[in-house]
């Protein structure tokens, strides 16, 4: 027994009492109580130990949700290239950075414009869109999935517009050909291609005689002489759009 808290004199003086206390206090426990409680104590201890082990296992398993989240993120990241490839196969023009990333690893995505066109498209976003903007045509029907048809349609539109515009009696449609945006000319302001005072064609005249449109060989058989498919001053492509 420790004497901590009391001096040796105090302990010596109260010694007989503390000694007597040890003999006086303990009490006999009923045997029936012992016989009843001991099995309960053993059962409670068993249950407690099992629960403690279960808790320990549960604590170890609580780490897993974090790992699961990491795996989910990794799967999502891995699915991004697959998704892009799937979109490309479906005919969607994927963004240039994504295409470049695929090119970098030696994969060329299908249904994508050539690299030069792609870069032009990326650089010329502020300018008018050409009639052969395949991505636009394809993206106009996102749910249809008929990208090949859209592509072909866009190319036909482009060819028709090109043929009509060059042979039109009234001259080039505004913004139609040569990638010149409306309101802009290739030559600097105040200058023209021909010397001052001279024009290639007289004013009011076109290169072709009035009523004769320059036609492509394919269209010559379909359209009677003196008639154009589109009314004068109109082209099939909307004003403000020109070939790139």
């Amino acid at each position, binding site marked *: 027994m420790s004497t901590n808290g009391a001096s040796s004199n105090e302990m010596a003086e109260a010694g007989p009492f503390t000694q*007597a206390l040890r003999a006086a206090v303990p009490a006999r426990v009923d045997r029936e109580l012992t016989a009843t409680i001991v099995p309960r104590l053993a*059962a409670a*201890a068993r249950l*407690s130990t099992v629960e403690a082990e279960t808790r320990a296992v549960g604590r170890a398993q609580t780490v897993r949700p974090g790992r699961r989240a990491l795996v989910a993120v990794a799967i999502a990241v891995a699915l991004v290239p697959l998704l892009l490839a799937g979109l490309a196969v479906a005919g969607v023009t994927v963004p240039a950075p994504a295409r470049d990333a695929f090119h970098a690893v030696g994969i060329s995505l299908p249904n994508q414009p050539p690299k030069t066109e792609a870069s032009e498209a990326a650089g010329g976003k502020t300018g008018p869109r050409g009639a052969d903007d395949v991505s636009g045509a394809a993206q106009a029907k996102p749910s249809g999935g008929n990208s090949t048809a859209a592509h072909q349609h866009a190319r036909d539109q482009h060819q028709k517009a090109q043929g009509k515009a060059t042979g039109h009696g009234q001259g080039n449609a505004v913004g139609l050909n040569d990638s010149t945006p409306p309101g802009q000319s290739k030559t600097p302001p105040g200058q023209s291609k021909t010397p001052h005072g001279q024009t290639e064609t007289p004013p009011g005249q076109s290169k072709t005689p009035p009523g004769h449109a320059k036609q492509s060989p394919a269209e010559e058989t379909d359209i009677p002489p003196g008639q154009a498919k589109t009314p004068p001053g109109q082209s099939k492509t909307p004003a403000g759009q020109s070939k790139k």
Partner: protein
Amino acid sequence: MSEERFSSLLAAARAGDEGAWEEIFQELAPTVLGYLRANGAPDPEDVLGETFLQVARDISTFDGERGAFRSWVFTIAHHRLIDARRHSARRPVELAAEPPEPRERADDAAEEALARLGRERVQRILGSLSEDQRVVLLLRFVGDMSVEDVAKAVGKRPGAVKALQRRGLAAVRRLLKSAGVPQ
């Protein structure tokens, strides 16, 4: 009981061995029951049962040697005693009217001292102490707990426990002197 023997006993008790629990119960239950009776527990046997059931439920969390186990059991007994008092319609503490039936003989020195003082007088002196003094003296000298362990059990600082012990022993000396008991 050696520490090695106690360790194996503890492991067996954790595993739910009835023999181990019987040994633990017979070793500690008489002193714990005496402590509960001396402090006027409403139903000492019932509180004793609750105490040991909690010991069994929490045994998987205990880690220590024999002395620490004894302190731990007495701490649980003290807490169960307080709970029992709260639930017993806040009756005033009544010390056992009849002295507890002694168990097997304690060591010779203790038996001699008890024979000199008389069991009834010891009970009377205990009853005349303040509750805090009685609890501290019983836990220190019957429970064999250190001042620090008693402080944790009763929720006081060690300095306060030392002061209670000093005042309690001083009160015992005065009572023994007034009763004419030779020191």
